[in-house]
Structures are given as structure tokens and as C-alpha cells.
């Protein structure tokens, strides 16, 4: 089996981009990632995307057609925002097995422009077919689902809103160092606590942004990667898992599938928690981060609140996390997973300027998708 490396990463225009379609954002990010690698679209023979098409199907066929390519390996695995981290594992397997040589993972979304430039609810369905008819009639929303987990964690472990706010404040500090981040003004724990409650116990500033954005990641064999433009970033270990689709079916509201995917990634890499120099943890909500840190084993169950206290994850803290400003402050086009990978690669290459984590050699990314349903964990290192 061949070792595999990430050789190119890029974002598209991000923020509010009303004049570009989600397909264009995905394609322009792909062009950027291929340029970053020193490869051309003609080199791509594997495609991985679950861009949301009208009707919700055929994502990889649609994007391959849009970019004029004929892949011999294709994957539209639909796990929500974790998909793109899981695709790194899938692409690595395909490359290792010789099923493709150059894998392109891409995503684009006009999540804010689709809502007329404003956030807020988008559901207008009138009747619900399938199992979600046991949730939607009761007013489920993404924030409502994650709020249920937060409330339960507070009940079981005494976690506080102030502790969740620590995450939002630290993440904003990282965003202030990233010119591409949408929200860069500093905030305080009081600002988070005083922002309006959307779904108790979660406040507005516990919630991710809604933006337009595209992103892309290119992988190939480590052997080929060594001849390309930039230093390869090697995939050292990975894991994926899902425990449920609907939050009402989640076995334990205080533990995510990262307990499985993270354990697999650490085992397969031969590394331990102390080896991780920088962590990119999908932060759809502050509670997502807290549950993920516990589930990955960076701290014990119920200890997440203490773990993130005193701005531990902020610039200068001893656990650098979500260094581009995260979904909370940088960008969040509905599915964020690919941006965790892009930032981890840039950190390991030393490309991050004022937000660079000194001598970052090993990075961990964790994507979460659905309603705390699915996770993908990858551990990346310099060649």
C-alpha cells in the first residue's frame, strides 16, 4: 500500500458572494488547490464531493461534468459537514490501492446568498416523509438539536455557559489574525453570555456563521508528492464513524462518534494526544467542540469545560485550536469539514503568518456532520 499526501489546498472567494454559484465556488477552489500543488485539472482522476444539488443527488457527477473531467474513481458519501474529512480517508484508500492517482476533494455553497444575504430559518417543507417525521413536526432545528446536547452535558457534568463561551472568545482571537475571517472584532465572555438566547442554553455567539464559500484539497501518492510544488503533508492516520442520523436516536447526548473515529486515527498513526501540535475541530457550535475534545480523549468525559477554560485554545494558549477562526468566526457555508483540512495543511507548511503555530509538525482534524451524527478524524504530519 502506498503512503498518501495532501499536495494542494485552497479556498474560493468566501463570505457573501452573491454573484457566483456554488458550482463556480467549488470549481474555483479546485483550480486554486491544483495550482497550489502544481497540477492541472487534467491530472485529476478521482473526485469526492457532496455539493448540494437540486434534488440532493448526483453530486460528484454534477461537479465532474461542470469541470469537464472523467474520473475513474468517484465518491459522494453524504455525511454532512464531516464528509470532507472522511473523504481524505477514502481518497487515501483509493490512491493506496491504485484506483486513482490524483484525488480532488471539493465543496461549494452559497448558504448565505441563498437566504438573501441574511441568516435564519430556511425550512418551508409542509409535509415530512420518512423517519424525520418524528422530529420536524416538533420544531427541530440544527441549533435546537445541539442545544439538547448542551443542556444534557450541563446537567450531567455541571458545565457552564461561561465555559462554552471560552471557546467562542478564543476562536475569535484566532479570527482576528486571519484577514479572510468574516468576524474579526474581539469579543468577551460577557458578550457571548449577553447575546440573545436562540435555543437554551445556546446563545447567538455559541453558533457558527452562515456564509458562502468553496474549498478544495488535492491528494496523491507520497512518492509523486515529493516531486510537486510544495512540501507534502502526509496522512498519518484516520478514522470515521456514525452513531445515528437523528438527534432523538443519539445513544448518549454527551459523546460523539469521535470516540470511535479518533481512537482509530490515533491507533493507525501510532501517535498519542501529546504529539498533536495543532487541532482543527469542527465548531458548528461551542458545544460541538467541547463534546469532540472529550470524545477524542484530549480530556476525560465531563472535563471539557475545565479543559477550555482560561483561554487555553486561544493564540498563546497551550492547545492551539481552530487557528483560522473556525466556523464560529471565519466561515461556515453549511458544511465546514474541508476548511479544517485546508488550515491544518497550511499550519504544517508554515504558511499562516501571524496565526502560525510555532513548529507545528503534527495536526489533527475532526469533522462532525448531521446532528452530532458522523465524524471523521485525520492526523496529518510533515513528510
Amino acid at each position, binding site marked *: 500500500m502506498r503512503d498518501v499526501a495532501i499536495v494542494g489546498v485552497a479556498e474560493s472567494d468566501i463570505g457573501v458572494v452573491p454573484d457566483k454559484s456554488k458550482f463556480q465556488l467549488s470549481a474555483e477552489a479546485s483550480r486554486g488547490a491544483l495550482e497550489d500543488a502544481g497540477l492541472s485539472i487534467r491530472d485529476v482522476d478521482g473526485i469526492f464531493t457532496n455539493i448540494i444539488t437540486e434534488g440532493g443527488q448526483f453530486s460528484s457527477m454534477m461537479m465532474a461534468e461542470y469541470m469537464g473531467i472523467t474520473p475513474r474513481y468517484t465518491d459522494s458519501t453524504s455525511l454532512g459537514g464531516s464528509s470532507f474529512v472522511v473523504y481524505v480517508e477514502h481518497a487515501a484508500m483509493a490512491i493506496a490501492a491504485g484506483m486513482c492517482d490524483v484525488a480532488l476533494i471539493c465543496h461549494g455553497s452559497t448558504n448565505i446568498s441563498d437566504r438573501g444575504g441574511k441568516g*435564519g*430559518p430556511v*425550512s*418551508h*417543507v*409542509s*409535509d*415530512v*416523509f*420518512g*423517519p424525520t*417525521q*418524528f*422530529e*420536524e*413536526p*416538533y*420544531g*427541530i*432545528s440544527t*441549533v*435546537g438539536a445541539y*442545544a*439538547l*446536547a*448542551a*443542556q*444534557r452535558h450541563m*446537567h450531567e457534568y455541571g458545565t457552564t455557559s461561561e465555559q462554552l463561551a471560552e471557546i467562542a472568545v478564543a476562536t475569535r482571537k484566532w479570527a482576528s489574525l486571519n484577514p479572510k475571517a468574516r468576524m474579526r472584532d474581539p469579543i468577551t465572555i460577557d458578550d457571548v453570555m449577553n447575546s*440573545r*438566547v*436562540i*435555543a*437554551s*442554553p*445556546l446563545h447567538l455567539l455559541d453558533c457558527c456563521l452562515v456564509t458562502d464559500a468553496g474549498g478544495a484539497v488535492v491528494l496523491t501518492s507520497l512518492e509523486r508528492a515529493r516531486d510537486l510544488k510544495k512540501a507534502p503533508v502526509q496522512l498519518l492516520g484516520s478514522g470515521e464513524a456514525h452513531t445515528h442520523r*437523528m*438527534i*432523538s*436516536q443519539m445513544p448518549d*447526548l454527551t459523546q460523539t462518534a469521535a470516540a470511535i473515529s479518533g481512537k482509530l486515527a490515533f491507533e493507525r498513526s501510532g501517535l498519542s494526544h501529546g504529539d498533536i501540535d495543532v487541532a482543527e475541530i469542527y465548531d458548528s457550535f461551542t458545544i460541538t467542540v467541547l463534546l469532540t475534545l472529550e470524545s477524542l480523549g484530549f480530556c476525560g468525559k465531563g472535563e471539557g469545560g475545565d479543559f477550555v477554560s482560561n483561554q487555553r485554545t486561544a493564540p498563546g494558549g497551550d492547545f492551539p485550536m481552530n487557528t483560522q477562526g473556525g466556523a464560529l468566526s471565519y466561515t461556515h457555508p453549511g458544511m465546514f469539514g474541508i476548511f479544517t483540512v485546508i488550515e491544518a495543511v497550511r499550519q504544517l507548511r508554515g504558511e499562516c503568518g501571524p496565526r502560525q503555530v510555532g513548529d507545528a509538525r503534527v495536526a489533527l482534524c475532526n469533522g462532525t456532520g448531521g446532528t452530532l451524527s458522523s465524524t471523521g478524524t485525520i492526523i496529518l504530519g510533515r513528510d
Partner: protein
Amino acid sequence: MTAAKLPPLPPLPRPYQDTAAYWAAARKHRFIIQKCTDCGEFQFYPRGVCSHCLSSALEWQEASGRGEVYSYSVNYRAPHPGFADKTPFVLALVTLEEGPRMMTNIVDCDPESVQIGMAVTVTFDDVTEEITLPKFRPA
């Protein structure tokens, strides 16, 4: 009153093979759940097979309608136009006396008074002539 003046309805279930009996019972203010006659486990939501052992030998049983709040959230923002006149409402997960957990709303009380562990009992919300939603109120 003209139809245009009625507030929009929340999204409503469209019963299908797995769920038609459940919704038909709810319409008659009966709360039924499935039990597997092979492994003896209860399950919620209704399925065509048992989610514990994959058997198709399922039977409907009248549930006690009693349970306790496993978690809840007071929602101040409407996720859909059909909830615009209903905020704040209590989204909740209730653990039924029989074991399974389900999503519901806690009603007939001050939303701020709901707590995890609170004992609740089923009540029926006739949303339309066809659809009745089982909800829960303090026991």
C-alpha cells in the same frame, strides 16, 4: 375567516408503511409503540424491522404514556414559518417508561419551568383533522 388569515402550519408527518398505524392511533388519542416478539425490546420510532435484532416480528402495544425529560431546550427562534406564533416552545427528548426515547414538545406549563428528570405524561395535539401529534405535559 379566510384561509389566508390562518397562520401557516408546522411541517406535518405524511404517514407511510412503517408509521401509518402509529399516526392512525394518535388520531384516536392512543399512544402506541412497537415491541419485538423475537427479542422483546421496545423501539421508537416505528420501523418495518426491529432495530435491535432485525426481526420483522413486531407488534404494537399501548404505551403507558409516562416518561421523563432526558433533555430539553427552550427555543426562541422559529425554525419554520409554522412556528412563528409558537415561540418560545420547549423542544424535548423524553425517555418513555418502556425504555425508548422520543422527540416531543413539553406543553401546558411555563417553558422556563421544564427540567431534566421531570416526570411527564402524554397529551394529544390535534393539529389538523388528519394529524394528531403526541406531546407531553408535566405529570
